[in-house]
C-alpha cells in the first residue's frame, strides 16, 4: 500500500494509511523520510482523512518524524482526524506535540495555520 504525497507552497502533505500499526510502520517511516529529504519543505502535514485505525506504533512513527523534522526547523500538523484518531492523539498526549488543524483551516484548504 503506497502512500500519496502532495507538495505545494513549501508544505508536504502526507496521506496516512487506512490502518496505522506496526505492520505498516517501517515502510511508512522510510517513505515519509525519503519524501522530506527530497522535497525541501518547511511544513509537514499528516492527513488522516483515510485513517480508520491507529495504535501506539503510529504514535512512534509520528513522534519520530516530529523529532527529525523539528531539528531542521520545520513545523508539523495533523488534519482530518476522525473521532477515533483524535482520541488516540488525546490519550497519548500527541495532541500537545502536533497541533490538530481546525475545521476552518480544513474548509479553506489552508492547513499550515499561519
Amino acid at each position, binding site marked *: 500500500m503506497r502512500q500519496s504525497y502532495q507538495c505545494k507552497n513549501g508544505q508536504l502533505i502526507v496521506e496516512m494509511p487506512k*490502518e496505522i*500499526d*506496526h*505492520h505498516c*510502520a517501517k515502510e511508512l*517511516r522510510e517513505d515519509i523520510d525519503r519524501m522530506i529529504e527530497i522535497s525541501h519543505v518547511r511544513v509537514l502535514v499528516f492527513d488522516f482523512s483515510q485513517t480508520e*485505525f491507529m*495504535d*501506539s*506504533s503510529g*504514535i*512512534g*512513527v509520528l*513522534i*519520530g518524524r516530529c523529532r527529525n523534522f523539528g531539528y531542521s526547523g520545520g513545523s508539523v500538523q495533523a488534519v482530518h482526524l476522525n*473521532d*477515533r484518531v483524535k*482520541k*488516540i492523539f488525546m*490519550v*497519548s498526549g500527541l495532541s500537545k506535540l502536533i497541533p490538530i488543524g481546525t475545521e476552518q483551516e480544513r474548509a479553506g484548504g489552508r492547513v499550515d495555520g499561519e
Partner: protein
Amino acid sequence: MENRMRLEFDAVSVNESFARVAVSAFFAQLNPTVDEIEDVKTAVSEAVTNSIIHGYGEKEGTVVVTCTYHDKDSEVVVIDEGVGIADIEKSMEPFFTTKPELERSGMGFAFMEAFMDEVSVESEPLKGTKVTMKKRFGERKLEE
C-alpha cells in the same frame, strides 16, 4: 449469555490486523458501541504487536489470543512463549521501551490500560508473557 473462542497464529506482523478483526467480530455479538469495539481493537493490537516484536523479537513463534464473555463482561488474553519480561512494573511505565531503535513509543501498556477496564501481566523471563484484559460493555438498548 456466554461464549468463548481461542485463536492461534504465526507471530508475523500481517496477523496484527487479522487478530483485531477476529476479536472484534467475536465481541460484535455483544452489540457494543463503535467506540467500545475500537477500544478493544486497539488494546488487542498493542498486546499482539508486543508478542511479535518484543516476545519473539520478530522471529518465529505462535501467539494465542483467547476471548470470552459472560453477559456484558468480556475478557481477552494474549499469550506468547517469547523472552518474557524481567521487570513488569518498569515495562508498564508510559514511554518505557526497550526498542527505541524501532521507534517504539513505549505507550503500548498505557494504551491497554486506557482502553480496557483492567489489565494484568504475568511473565517469566525465557518462558513468555500473558496479558489479561477485561472490559465491561455498556448496557445498550437492543436494536429494533
